[in-house]
């Protein structure tokens, strides 16, 4: 609608709207838009981190990173980590949500406790897990030895593929409560009458899960998968604290590579180029997510 068509009252409301949204837009620009543009800008320079000085190199940072094996291996690790941890999160999360949706004693308590991993600080969680994984006095190795599964303690974080599997497992443990909350919220809004109609139509428990529950969960699962894929793809602290990207670079994902370039190798320009490429990759998920949201709004 053109401004000329607006009544004075509508114009007043429009002005009020601008005043109310203004501070948010300013903060958004300061913390999102400015760093984003800076990153793209910095990626065109070869910069020494301590001095933040350097020379214009154009797109050569990008050419260099695409030619580097380390980028591709990190991207591969990143994909394995994201797909692995996300699959486990969805399986554990949906399974747990279905259990917590049943009528059972202490349901409220169980629903609260299940959130614990999600709310505990990553540093604390990783410290606890490092103790559990410890090869000398970790409880996991204690069980492995006790059950006779192995004569020697397993090196959970220092050898491959154990390290990647351990990281994936801890990631799944840390983030599956998010899936539980979102799925449970959706499960509670599925009308009982759908299940009752299905019972009368002759559907057994398994048919009811596939014909009623799962189709009803589809929308929320798509959103969960897209959001968690974005968040898991850029996960840094959990992996860095647990393995530091090691052994060698076996669990090094792109965010860890960005950190290494920026603060270990002091190549801020190169680090920015990695970060920009990573953003471009995540943009695919974001576009899918936005499209999906818009479709639902229509």
């Amino acid at each position, binding site marked *: 609608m053109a401004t000329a068509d607006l009544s004075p009252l509508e114009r007043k409301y429009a002005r009020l709207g601008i005043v109310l949204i203004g501070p948010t837009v300013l903060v958004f620009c300061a913390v999102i838009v400015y760093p984003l543009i800076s990153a793209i800008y910095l990626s065109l320079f070869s910069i020494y981190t301590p001095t933040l000085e350097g020379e214009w190199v154009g797109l050569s940072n990008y050419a260099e990173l695409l030619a580097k094996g380390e980028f591709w291996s990190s991207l591969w690790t990143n994909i394995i980590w994201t797909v692995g941890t996300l699959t486990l999160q969805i399986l554990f999360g949906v399974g747990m949500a279905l259990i917590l949706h049943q009528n059972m004693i202490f349901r409220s308590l169980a629903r609260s406790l299940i959130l614990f991993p999600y709310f505990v600080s990553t540093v604390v969680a990783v410290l606890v897990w490092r103790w559990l994984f410890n090869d000398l006095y970790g409880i996991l190795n204690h069980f492995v030895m006790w059950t006779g599964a192995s004569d020697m303690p397993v090196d959970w974080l220092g050898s491959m593929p154990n390290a990647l599997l351990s990281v994936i497992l801890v990631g799944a443990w840390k983030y599956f409560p998010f899936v539980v909350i979102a799925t449970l919220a959706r499960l509670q809004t599925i*009308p009982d*009458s*759908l299940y*009752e*109609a*299905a*019972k*009368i*139509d*002759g*559907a*057994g428990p398994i*048919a009811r899960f596939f*014909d*009623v529950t799962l*189709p*009803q969960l*589809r929308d929320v699962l798509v959103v969960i998968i897209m959001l968690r894929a974005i968040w898991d793809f850029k996960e840094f602290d959990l992996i860095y604290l647990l393995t530091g990207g090691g052994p060698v670079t076996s669990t090094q994902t792109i965010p860890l590579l960005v950190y290494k370039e920026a603060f270990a190798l002091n190549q801020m320009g190169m680090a920015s180029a990695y970060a920009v490429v990573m953003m471009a990759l995540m943009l695919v998920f974001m576009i899918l997510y936005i499209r999906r949201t818009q479709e639902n709004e229509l």
Partner: protein
Amino acid sequence: MTDVILDQVEKRFGSFTAVHCLDLHIKSGEFVALLGPSGCGKTTTLRMLAGLEFPTSGDIRIGERTVNDVPPGKRDIAMVFQSYALYPHMTVEQNIAYPLKKRGVPLAERGAMVSKVAELLQLDELKDRKPKQLSGGQQQRVALGRALVRDPKVFLLDEPLSNLDAKLRAYMRAELIELHARLGRTMVYVTHDQLEAMTMADRIAIMNEGRLQQLGTPDEVYNCPANRFVAGFIGQPSMNIADGTLDETARFRAGSFEIGLDPERFDTRPGPVALGLRPEAISIGAGPIAARVRVVEPTGHENIIILETDGLGALTARTAVQVRPTVGETVQCGIDADALHLFDGADGRRRNRDDSMVTQTPVGERAKVKESQ
């Protein structure tokens, strides 16, 4: 023969009894409405018939079979829900075909059966749409289609018209009456709307607080209500009921109002009683009762007049459209002595001597009689 029989059925939820000792015999091919206010146990009764709730005690029989332990899908019933309960991700065609699919009907046969039902309910054009693309009335027809397609022995309908607007509701009422006549199947219809029950049902089971109050034809429940609750519940506007006492000479007194009752027609044992009078049994213009006009409600084809009297309190009268007193005016009213209803002051039971019309006494009362025997 698919009679539906509830024999001494009781349903308790913890310490709360939702349905008390219910005896109900629905004949094969009959359309019975379960009518009552919210929380009266009518939906619980229907859900027990469907197998979605299980009776705490008593037996439910559908046809020759006792179905207490039979799961809903094997009872040969179909149910239409108040919310329609259509599967949102399926098209109209898939929704209607779903019960057939679950029973292993071959695909080709399924298609033909769905087409037949879709044609009957004028859904041919909508077969590829999803439920959210349909209007309330169309969704209602799809829900009916899903019930019809299996040709079940008994149809259970849980307030199926309550989400529709008034015009569509009237239309669907006529559709359902026609459908019942065509199919000749047993139908049990839950509603809180007496108009639906009166216009559609062969017989109405009126329930209150988990007890069956009366089972009778629409005429019976209107003209010979079994007790004070039924009298007040059936009829719009509802029956005028005045509390008073009967003396030794069979005279009813309420304040300054007095009338002699014929012992041939009424059980005139002295004591507290209530006198009931339908709004159409009150005439305005001439008569012994002086009344002040409080409200006049013209409806177009008649007038509803609310009057204030000394002995009988507030009275509602239904008059011809020409009779239209002004508010505040004092008018003389007459009552039709042949249309009086007398109810017991203690248990509310009907005390007119025309019990041949009353086919069901309250079950709670009957249970007490059984116990005392």
